[in-house]
């Protein structure tokens, strides 16, 4: 399916490297964007394109934290909760988010819309509390901004959210 949909981009990506294996992390980003998480199918497809063993891809999925081994919500909210952010209220922010979404950290809302996670430093310590949602940064957050963001995302989802994802936009540069 990746091949059919992104054939041109994948060829351009593979042409960058002397070894196909180098494209694996990129392709995993693309596969996850397509399938939601690193499903068996996603892993098999990436392995086929790179001509490597699926077990190797599975190992990478476990090692690199941006890949999800289990299904997640449509929007994954990853709140940076490292020391620098915690000094500016990230721990309280996570509690608030958890309460509002009515899910624990690592939980997904019943409607499959949101997953809440805490992550290590995202490199935006001066704008804490902050989070990334499907690789987009939301910074200088507070409760009101969080409410607003959640409402916006719900609305977008209802309207079919056809905005290209961050991964899709990046792949559009592969020429």
């Amino acid at each position, binding site marked *: 399916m990746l091949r059919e949909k992104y054939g041109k981009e994948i060829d351009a990506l593979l042409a*960058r490297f*002397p*070894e196909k*294996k*180098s*494209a*694996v*992390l*990129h392709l*995993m*980003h693309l596969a996850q964007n397509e399938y939601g998480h690193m499903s068996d199918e996603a892993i098999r497809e990436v392995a086929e394109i*790179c001509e*490597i063993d699926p077990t190797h891809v599975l*190992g*990478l999925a476990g*090692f*690199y*934290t*941006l*890949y999800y081994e289990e299904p997640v919500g449509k929007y994954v909210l990853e709140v940076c909760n*490292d*020391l*620098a952010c*915690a*000094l*500016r209220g990230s721990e309280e922010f996570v509690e608030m988010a958890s309460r509002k979404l009515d899910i624990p950290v690592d939980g997904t809302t019943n409607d499959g819309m949101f997953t809440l996670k805490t*992550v*290590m*430093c*995202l*490199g*935006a*310590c*001066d*704008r*804490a509390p902050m989070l*990334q949602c499907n*690789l*987009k*940064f939301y910074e200088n957050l507070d409760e009101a901004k969080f409410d607003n963001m959640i409402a916006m995302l719900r609305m977008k989802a209802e309207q079919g959210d056809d905005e290209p994802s*961050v*991964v899709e*936009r*990046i792949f559009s*540069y592969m020429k």
Partner: protein
Amino acid sequence: MEHVLLRHRDIPNLKKLEVYREHGGYEGLKKALSMTPAEVIEIVKASNLRGRGGAGFGTGVKWSFIPKNAPETYVLINTDESEMGTFKDRELTENNPHQIIEGALIAAYAIGCHKVFNYMRGEFMDAAYAFEEALQECREAGILGDNILGSGFSCEMYTHFGAGAYICGEETALIESLAGNLGQPWSKPPFPAIEGLYKKPTVVNNTETLANVPMILINGPDWYKSMGTPQSPGPKIVCISGHVERPGNYEVHMGVTYRELLEMAGGIRGGKKFKALFPSGGSGPIVVDDALGAPLTYEGLTPFDSVMGSASLVFLDEDTDMVWATLKVIEFFRHESCGKCTPCREGTFWLDRVVQRIYDGRGTEADIRLLQSIAGGMKGKCLCALGEFSISPILSSIVHFLPEYKAKVAAAKGGKVAQPAAAAAVR
């Protein structure tokens, strides 16, 4: 002060090629292309530019290690920026991408490389559009690709994304990751300059380091050395976060004191008193007020048993629980340990557990000694710097804040140990 690195703060739209060129952009590259590669390396060496990722190794010296006339070499830009408290390379990538590209092309010319990869952490994908746009502009303008600016030199450049692993900022782990493997470091030798990416000679330079290079070519090493101190010349972007009024990136000349930097950031938030500073994100030993007068240089914190590192300053106010702060940092290292070498994998795991139990009020006096013992067992035995760095917040917080650890332990025993001397007398 006029910026050398954060020039986009002075010049609107600097990320556009047209604007960048109006302000001297790619003149450094042109100058480099008119010289021999050896001459370019000599200029960078003479400037004494040192690695801004934190290690402080001489950039020109690093380039000179690449074997001459090697048929295939690589320049890798390290934009993996994942150290807690560090957010400088992201600002450069988003706002001043051409200066990074120009610096990397000069590096490529100097070592005879025809393909540059910018290894960026996956979380920066949204910040990377600006860099991709800049690359596109360069291709169209003949600054990338074949026969760059009519010089006969050809080079391509691509962005490469990681996927959430701090360890990939370590150069050998970065190389492994780019090759499609787990991001785990290897034990040097072989050094990347001899056997790096695809076993070919490779230079890995930090993003900020490369952003220094174009201006060095344009204005010369003496101009560069007029900033900073003799051993630590040049400008430096300092990332300030934590309990300050105005967190953010500050470009300064090295040699400015930590106290001055705190003042630039508006001092401690809410008029509170300063308590402690993580001077290099999670990776440098904690310092206290006696170190605030020290200069921000590669050597400045040596008398205080600490380091400048990537200059990621996390300030803590008087109300901060230092056992909690230490716990946050050791959790980071435990999570980010790549698992390859035993001292780091096991050591960070146990340090985390023991600090956690002291923090939770389940610790004993012996646990404080246990922490020192685990850290001692890791010191000098880890495969890479991550493991070595992970012990520094623990050891330094025990040195400076032992009473806080003791108070936690005492509270765990219902407060009875608050008077150990009296307890001994009764027995």
